[in-house]
């Protein structure tokens, strides 16, 4: 569906100005174009799986993110149940996905699961949010979460965000991580918990997003 939002004038005026400016070619005269291969300058990517996992674990520590390595999905589910009990969570915002359903299978009784379709206020009252991640980057420590099935709202609201990912989705560079994540409706890259630089420009690990981040990385492929 293509829809014109405005009378065309604004667009035509701007495009005509740009064409005019291109004739003056200020930019062309000003800047020689260097050969582009950005990857040459970026930090070294990690090629092998072991190297990626240990680099990712190191980055998680630097980013003050809790990192849990699990052999199987079953281990992750048990870890999640224990975390929920320890933190005394009663209300969790959850992404509606089979994978998230599996890792929450062992939750203690009485813990409410709130999906995005329950509305903003219900999500806003949750103590933690549970989502799956589409990809991770060992180099920067970025965790890529999609926007599908309520993941955007759950991850935006949660004071603590718990993310589950599989090791085969751990990439060696950000470039690769974005490719692995694919193109769902939207993506969010989390690199550590939210930060605020307020008074005196000192970073405070808190803000409107998750103030703590927990990552479960599952080694088994299935």
């Amino acid at each position, binding site marked *: 569906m293509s829809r014109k939002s405005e009378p065309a004038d604004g667009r035509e005026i701007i*495009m005509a100005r740009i064409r005019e400016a*291109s004739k003056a070619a200020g930019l062309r005269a000003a800047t020689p174009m260097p050969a582009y291969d950005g990857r040459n300058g970026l930090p070294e990517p990690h090629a092998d799986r072991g190297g990626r996992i240990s680099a990712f674990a190191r980055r998680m520590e630097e980013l003050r993110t809790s990192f849990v390595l699990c052999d199987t999905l079953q281990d992750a589910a048990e870890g999640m149940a224990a975390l929920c009990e320890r933190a005394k969570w009663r209300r969790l915002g959850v992404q509606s996905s089979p994978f998230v359903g599996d890792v929450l299978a062992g939750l203690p009784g009485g813990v409410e699961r709130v999906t995005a*379709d329950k509305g903003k206020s219900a999500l*806003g009252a949750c103590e933690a949010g549970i989502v799956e991640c589409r990809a991770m980057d060992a180099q920067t420590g970025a965790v890529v979460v999609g926007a599908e099935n309520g993941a955007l709202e759950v991850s*935006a609201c949660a004071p603590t965000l718990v993310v589950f990912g599989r090791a085969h989705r751990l990439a060696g560079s950000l470039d690769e991580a974005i490719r692995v994540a694919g193109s769902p409706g939207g993506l969010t890259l989390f690199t550590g918990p939210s930060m*605020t630089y307020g008074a005196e*420009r000192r970073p405070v690990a808190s*803000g409107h997003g998750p103030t703590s981040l927990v990552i479960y990385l599952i080694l088994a492929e299935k």
Partner: protein
Amino acid sequence: MRNSSNADFEKAVADFQYDVASAQRHRDGLDRENWARTEARARFRDWGAARAAGAAIRDADLLHLERRLADFAARFESAGGRLHWAPSAGDAREALVRIAKEAGVRSCVRGLSSTLEEIGADEALGTSGVAVRHSQFGDMVNHLRGGRPSHMLHPAMHLSREEVGETLHAKMGSPTTSNPEEQVALVRKSLRESFLQADMGLAGASFLLAEEGKVALVEHEGNLRLIASMPRVFVVVAGIEKVTESVSDLPLLLQLVGASAGGTALPSGVSLIGPDTPRACGETAVMHLILVDNGRSLLLADTASAEALRCVKCGACADICPVYRMAGGRAYGSVLPGPIGAVLTRHLMPARGAQALPLATPLCGACGDVCPVGIDLHRALVSQRREMPPASRGWKVNAMLRLHERMMSSQARYNRGTRIVRILAVLADLTRKTSFNPLSDWMRHRTLPETPKKTFRGWWKSTAGATSSAARKDKA
């Protein structure tokens, strides 16, 4: 921008320096940031190559701006987004108010964005009866105090934690605390309802992805994710220069921004959102984008300053600038303090009187060296100084420039001039604190070097140098 002249700038600097503690906090903040940036760059295999590649990406975007915008518009609109083209700031304000009226918006929560300040979004919405809340911590505190921003990303960095605590207590009725974690937690709690209840979310964008028709929101606090996902109407206001070819450009650009803006591998949150992104918990959510020209296309045609449109708003040029270090950000009176602000403010917000800002730089070149997309800020500033209307330089500077021009236009005048200048220098020093001295303002903070006994030419004649050059002449 309320500073209209050199004198206003100087007064603001003097006020800033007078507040010794605030000036020291400002410098400490810059030192920490500059150190973190140096460390972050060291992680790159080749910072220079990455930077050149970033410049090349942004240049290609600007060279193909018309095509990029057309591609973006097609994708964005076919995904159900409403696009509004605003040739001027006034058009952008009109579009914003129209969107709010049509959607019955009464409340709005917004992010930190220089483009929102440029178009005067708050005033436009306020006069239409829409209550606006600022959500970025420093921006919100500054807004509550009615103060000017001191940095493009950290607008309240000049404040102490005690001052922030007092402001939150006075304006929001929060318990008094000087603990930054507690302060942020209080604001988080107070703003949560606004995010959940607001009709409209309003933000700027860091990049527009032409192939995907999505916007990239870069942040640290998580407020932009809430702005984008909770209210039923989401409006992004972005300059036309923000468009880049595709998501494949982002890994490099984001790592350059991360290293330069906060000394980190990446900013802590980056969201790619489009009209087809499921949002607002299943309610019908509409996404609007207001694309603003407002002087950018003119800048594109300017040989010396077009590169400034590459800017990714990392703030590094301000952090490194010796004038910004001593002047503080508020003296610039612009939401974009520092060297890039001196270049862009004149073009994008000329009505706010930024004519003297290109003088607020020593032209040392540090800004261009630190810029992650290699903008030659030094060149742009020199060119803008040339274009400054003579009146904005003040009569003293103009008179001196005219004298200098005459003196340099012939050897005889130059020789006479150097003799006169030596006498004037002694007189200037003797009368430095009096109103007879037209340089008294300038000399309040500076000492002229001691006048040597001989001129250089006199000294040269009296040394072996003169003999050897005479011998060379004879030989020739």
